């Protein structure tokens, strides 16, 4: 078990390292003219050279890379080009917003997906099953920005016009300034993400439940005279949840990168929006920092899923 853990950990580190190389290489393929845009249009070549020197851009790429890795190992992801703020601080500032968004949405879509999946599986091919399948596919087909804009139009704009000033147009209100504002600002983004992602879970839960409900031990439980609801929740759902948990681990990691659109539409200054801004300004350290951070989240999530599997199923460890 310990050997497996160490191997998995090393594997994760290797993946992370490859990502740093890839991301770093990516941004040096096309020469950036950061120094030019920082210096302004009338800048003399000397000024530009000076700026380049100050940012370390005049050094060979491999030196910049080594420098970057060395610092990263010491918890320093560099400073942004424009205001010399530490990238870790920028991430630290944006992270709570993204985490609030991701976790809230996750709770919603899990509830929605598992609940719908169970209903579908208990009455397969029924009207409810077909309706729920269509419902989840409908939202699954939505581009996230479209769903977000529709929410803004109908739930914010139309309601506000009609005199119900329930939801803000966008922006973020920290939890520290009161749970009410925090909740109001995040409700629509949560709904957007949750409706999009619930479909996967409805399908997973439905499939797993159908498999489990066909098993002998479920029949045994029924023949013992247990109430149907108890059979489904206690005996069925418990073993059907394994694939759901796996998918959840993967999605939660990927979400850090996937909240980009939702944050943009609802003007939430989370990691996604910060990254988009940085990309538009070619603010290299911030981009690399966020991409690396998000990748690390995926790697860690996958690691946790694997470890959980290994704990549940000893056969996994052999491979």
């Amino acid at each position, binding site marked *: 078990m310990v050997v497996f853990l160490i191997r998995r950990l090393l594997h994760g580190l290797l993946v*992370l390292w490859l990502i740093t190389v890839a991301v770093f290489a*990516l941004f040096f393929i096309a020469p950036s003219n950061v120094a030019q845009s920082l210096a302004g249009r009338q800048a003399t070549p000397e000024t530009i050279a000076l700026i380049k020197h100050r940012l370390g851009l005049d050094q060979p790429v491999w030196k910049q890379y080594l420098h970057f890795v060395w610092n990263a190992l010491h918890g320093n992801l560099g400073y942004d080009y424009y205001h010399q703020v530490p990238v870790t601080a920028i991430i630290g500032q944006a992270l709570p917003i993204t985490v609030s968004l991701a976790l809230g949405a996750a709770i919603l879509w899990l509830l929605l997906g598992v609940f719908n999946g169970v209903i579908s599986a208990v009455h397969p091919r029924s009207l409810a099953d077909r309706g729920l399948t269509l419902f989840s*596919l409908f939202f699954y087909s939505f581009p996230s920005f479209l769903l977000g*804009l529709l929410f803004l*139009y109908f739930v914010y704009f139309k309601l506000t016009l009609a005199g119900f000033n329930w939801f803000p147009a966008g922006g973020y209100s920290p939890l520290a300034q009161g749970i009410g504002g925090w909740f109001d600002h995040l409700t629509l983004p949560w709904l957007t993400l949750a409706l999009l992602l619930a479909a996967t879970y409805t399908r997973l839960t439905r499939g797993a439940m159908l498999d489990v409900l066909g098993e002998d031990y479920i029949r045994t439980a029924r023949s013992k005279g247990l109430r149907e609801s108890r059979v489904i929740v206690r005996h069925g759902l418990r073993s059907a949840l394994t694939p759901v948990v796996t998918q959840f681990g993967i999605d939660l990691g990927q979400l850090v*990168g996937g909240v980009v659109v939702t944050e943009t539409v609802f003007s939430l200054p989370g990691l996604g929006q910060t990254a988009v801004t940085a990309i*538009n300004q070619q603010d290299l350290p911030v981009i690399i920092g966020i991409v690396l951070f998000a990748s690390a989240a995926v790697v860690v999530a996958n690691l946790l899923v694997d470890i959980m599997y290994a704990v549940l199923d000893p056969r996994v460890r052999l491979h």
Partner: protein
Amino acid sequence: MTAIMEVVEAPQIQGRSPFTLAMRRLRRDKVAMVSLAVIALIVLMAVFAPVFAHLTGHPPNEQYRDTGLTPDGLPRGPDGTFWLGTDDLGRDVLVRIAYGARVSLLVGVAATAITVAVGIVLGLAAGFLGGIVDTVLARLIDVVLSVPFLLVAIALVSVTGPSLTITVLVIGFFSWASVARIVRGQVLSLREREFVEAARSLGAGDTRIMFVDILPNVLAPVIVYTTLLVPVVIVTQATLSFLGLGLPPPTADWGGMINEAQAYYTTAWWFILFPGLALLITTLAFNLFGDGVRDAFDPRADRS
């Protein structure tokens, strides 16, 4: 009549392949068939986009600043001349939607084709050849799957500058890994099967075994995945466009139209609604069809 009889020398007994059977199941699936019809309509709209321009008399990029905008300079709502209204520059929304379908479908098909081709070849190579090839490819798959796709895609496009080719390549580059992983997993179990050894004993080389003997056996999950990948690709392209990284203006594409319409959602609902509907109907049709394909290829998943 006699001519036909002469042609038929001996009765040919045509075996029913798993593929034929799946197609038969698919044809009986009403939802899937309706979706397919909708997809066909969208394809027709894309192909005959110039006909829309001709019928309305409005080329896609022509700005009608006098007739197409209100005196305040706002987009005009649907009427007799502009059936689905105009956009912020006085262009015909209907014609632009028809032209936008070309972009969505082209990217959807091209990027999916690249993804599937690369994914199959690398997945086959990793699974079948094993050894160092597998080790390297498996790590590569892990890396690509761990990268926050949309974030890096935006970054890439912003560095290279937006274009159709770049969009297709970026989407293809980040999507092949899932296909490769599916194929690799299947191949790992298939290559131990006796028919592979049988092929080898007949003198078949690695390439032939991979493509003639193993490939047909991994096709079913790949087909299912492919049909479900098309809408994902279309949404991704629209998302890039929405974030301002689509096609350079004035080319019409749905994501870009929605991006432009964002600022007018309170004043010109048609400007955002119709491109949005076009996009939604397209992805929904592909998803419903893909769902049908999945059920057709794996009837077990739908049993009750």
